């Protein structure tokens, strides 16, 4: 039990660090898949089988693929030359270490640490389905609505922006005298201090 836990911890944390620190974005996505799989194994070890398989299905199957697609669609040509960390990276690292220290300190000071695990209860998918259809039916409907709205919103946000000529044709109410905002990508950048 302890050996499994140690192996899972090492795999999950090392791949998470790699996903956050590698330069090549596709390597980051592959390490992220490993992290998600390690977390699913943690769920299985904690006897939450349904959540573990849902984790693999949603994260490894869908979110990772979505991230890889976004990476390929936003490929930067000159990304190999510039630094991958922002100029104030030291503050971020120190802040994360402070948060980690605070959480670990509060965990070790808590009396909850010595609570024993209760008897092994087998959670069947039947019980989860019954709960979803009785006690949790309103959250289920809300999450369905949220997923629909998010899907439509994502499609609308990622649609091509119409060019100025075609938008004038499609939208005759748009006055041609409206001053068009210059595209910031074409304006030469002036860096203010």
């Amino acid at each position, binding site marked *: 039990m302890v050996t499994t836990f140690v192996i899972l911890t090492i795999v999950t944390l090392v791949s998470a660090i790699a996903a956050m620190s590698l330069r090549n974005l596709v390597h980051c996505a592959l390490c992220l898949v490993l992290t998600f799989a390690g977390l699913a194994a943690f769920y299985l070890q904690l006897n939450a089988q349904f959540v573990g398989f849902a984790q693999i299905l949603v994260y490894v199957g869908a979110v990772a693929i979505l991230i890889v697609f976004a*990476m390929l*669609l936003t490929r930067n040509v000159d990304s190999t030359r*510039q630094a991958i960390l922002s100029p104030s990276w030291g503050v971020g690292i120190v802040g994360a270490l402070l948060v980690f220290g605070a959480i670990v300190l509060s965990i070790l000071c808590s009396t909850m640490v010595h609570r024993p695990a209760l008897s092994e209860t087998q959670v069947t998918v039947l019980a989860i389905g019954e709960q979803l259809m009785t006690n949790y039916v309103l959250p289920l409907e809300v999450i369905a609505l949220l997923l629909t709205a998010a899907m439509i919103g994502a499609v609308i946000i990622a649609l091509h922006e119409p060019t100025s000529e075609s938008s004038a044709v499609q939208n005759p109410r748009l006055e041609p005298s409206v001053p068009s905002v210059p595209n910031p990508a074409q304006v030469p950048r002036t860096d203010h201090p």
Partner: protein
Amino acid sequence: MLPLHYYLIVSAALFAIGLAGALTRRNAIIALIGIELMLNAANLNFIAFWRYGSRPEALTGVMFVIFSIGVAAAEAAVGLALIIAIYRHYKTTNLDEIDSLKG
């Protein structure tokens, strides 16, 4: 079974790694991955507390994690669509260069 705080410390480490990545990396997609890692750390906490809680047959932790996974999937879809839209506009995903609203 292992004591509860083993899982909590692993979850805290995962949260700290995600926070460090979200704060330090310049690429918007990697920052979004850091946010996903933090959400997953919270999910691991939910499952661990449910497993060691007083009434595991009530399934509250499992239900919360299922809904949390759904919300995280919606967040990832909208976030990546926003990043793609920003990339079309600015031709970059570098968070330091997207500063039009900066005074």
